[in-house]
């Protein structure tokens, strides 16, 4: 199967900095996959995101080694940033930092206007994106600042989506959003995957959503990939996660303590990561 993203031995250093922020990263992503990226502040998560939509190397100064291939053949180094934006949509942590226009409508169509799509097509795509992100037309004339956190991020997603990218990269999209808003945003992402086989790369500090939605989780530490596994395997490794400052699910933390205890010795592969796993595992341990 073709890889929609292929990162080959990528290293990156910002201009003026001594250290390589990314060190020899290799990662392959299949179409429709959902990859979660975790790691402590400063581990290189945002830099990796920027290298996927061409912001690196086109908008940041620095040194690059290795390659990022999109859609199996296009090299971000050779593509224009506009072409990158058509292929790879990007949503940032702080939507307010991304919004530059006066109304939600202007904000959403901005990218489409920029690449010069005909007005009729922009109008059609606007209707389509509103529907995709589950936003009411009533929002169109409002200033983005009047919206809730979840609504703002859905506008930010719509603004990327209007270019019909194959890949969405979301850098901590719900860090500033309350649990309800979080749910709204993840519902939209799930729908994009189901209906359009969208490939999703998502940076997140908290385990809950990654556990629920991701096919694979990548742990970055000091610019290198330390773990790359399906979430049910990934979150069992509580010692590694704690060492690298990633929140393990509480159930996994409990399982880890039970595995470490010489009198209980829960086998490491049986460490539960979800509440459902936990109920099953502990019922077996306690009630039988």
């Amino acid at each position, binding site marked *: 199967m073709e890889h929609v993203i292929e990162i080959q031995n990528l290293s990156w250093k910002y201009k003026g900095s001594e250290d390589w922020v990314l060190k020899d990263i290799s990662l392959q992503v299949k179409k429709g996959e959902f990859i979660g990226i975790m790691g402590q502040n400063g581990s290189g998560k945002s830099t990796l995101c920027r290298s996927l939509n061409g912001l690196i190397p086109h908008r940041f100064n620095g040194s690059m080694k290795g390659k990022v291939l999109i859609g199996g053949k296009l090299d971000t180094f050779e593509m224009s940033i506009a072409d990158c934006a058509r292929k790879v949509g990007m949503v940032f942590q702080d939507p307010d930092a991304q919004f530059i226009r006066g109304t939600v409508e202007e904000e959403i169509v901005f990218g489409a206007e920029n690449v010069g799509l005909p007005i009729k097509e922009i109008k059609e795509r606007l209707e389509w994106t509103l529907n995709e992100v589950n936003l009411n037309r009533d929002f169109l004339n409002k200033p983005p600042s009047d919206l809730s956190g979840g609504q703002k991020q859905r506008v930010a997603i719509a603004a990327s989506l209007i270019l019909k990218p194959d890949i969405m990269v979301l850098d901590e999209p719900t860090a500033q959003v309350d649990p309800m808003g979080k749910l709204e945003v993840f519902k939209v992402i799930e729908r994009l995957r189901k209906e359009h086989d969208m490939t999703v790369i998502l940076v997140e500090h908290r385990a809950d959503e990654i556990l629920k939605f991701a096919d694979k989780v990548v742990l970055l530490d000091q610019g290198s990939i330390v773990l790359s596994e399906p979430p049910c395997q990934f979150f069992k490794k509580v010692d590694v996660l704690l060492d690298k400052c990633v929140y393990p699910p509480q159930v996994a*933390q409990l399982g880890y303590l039970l595995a470490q205890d010489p009198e209980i010795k829960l086998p490491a592969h049986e460490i539960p990561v979800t509440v459902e796993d936990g109920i099953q595992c*502990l019922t077996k341990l306690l*009630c039988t």
Partner: protein
Amino acid sequence: MSQPFISAKDVHFKYPDGTKALYGVDLDIYEGEIVSIVGQNGSGKTTLVKHFNGLLKPTEGDVLVGGTSVKKQPLGQLARTVGYVYQNPSLQLFCRSVRDEVSFGLKLLKVPGNEIKSTVEESLKTVGLLDKIDEYPFFLTMGEKQRVAIAAILALKPKVLIVDEPTTGQDYKMAYQFMKLFEKLNKEEGKTVIFITHEMRFSTEFAKRTVVMSNGKILLDGPSGKVFTQVDKLKEAFVAPPQISELAMKLNECGIRPDILTVDEMYQEIKQALLKKRGAINGTCN
């Protein structure tokens, strides 16, 4: 019990644009408590705590701090009693150096210069940022900015510290460090701490008491262990209990207490249950 230090009495609040945010809130906070306030955005958490240091005045009802109505206390005095750390430190920081930032409140209150110097250094030491005293706040990391904001409030030596979503957007280590810092300030300096959070694991681990807000009212208020077992009420407030509470409630049939709050507590409970069970099987009657 002694007199509450902060007492909200049937507080109603309407913003100037007509949005009503609080609908009759009664809440007593006692000296030395750590209280967590949870609830979805728009439930009135921030609006409520802004009444405690006079940033907002009730439209109806009253808030007493130290026994006196906030309506009768000058803001400067209230700021020294109840410190409020904003959710977004960028909103609070505006000076050219960390030192100026932390000195600002003290200068406003006309504290003598030599006292300012020592207080500022002491506050920065508490949050572990003394080495950044001459840096420009804008270039600090999010976590550092947040700590400068906390130091600026600590410098005023308030009895009560209110922190609005201190862990939002932080990684696990940083979030945990913040919570440990508040715990330390509570234990060692006797500060009353009120924190607003969306992370229920911090609510259960660090606050003995949790207040759940929904639609401008208090829906639940009590020991965190009791609050997080009220599944239906929590659902009404769109608050999900932390994984461990959920697990404990569902393992009730296996003899696990439903009001367990932390991973460690759960681990001990399971260990005891297991040893008891094994003891029963092995028939250790002697």
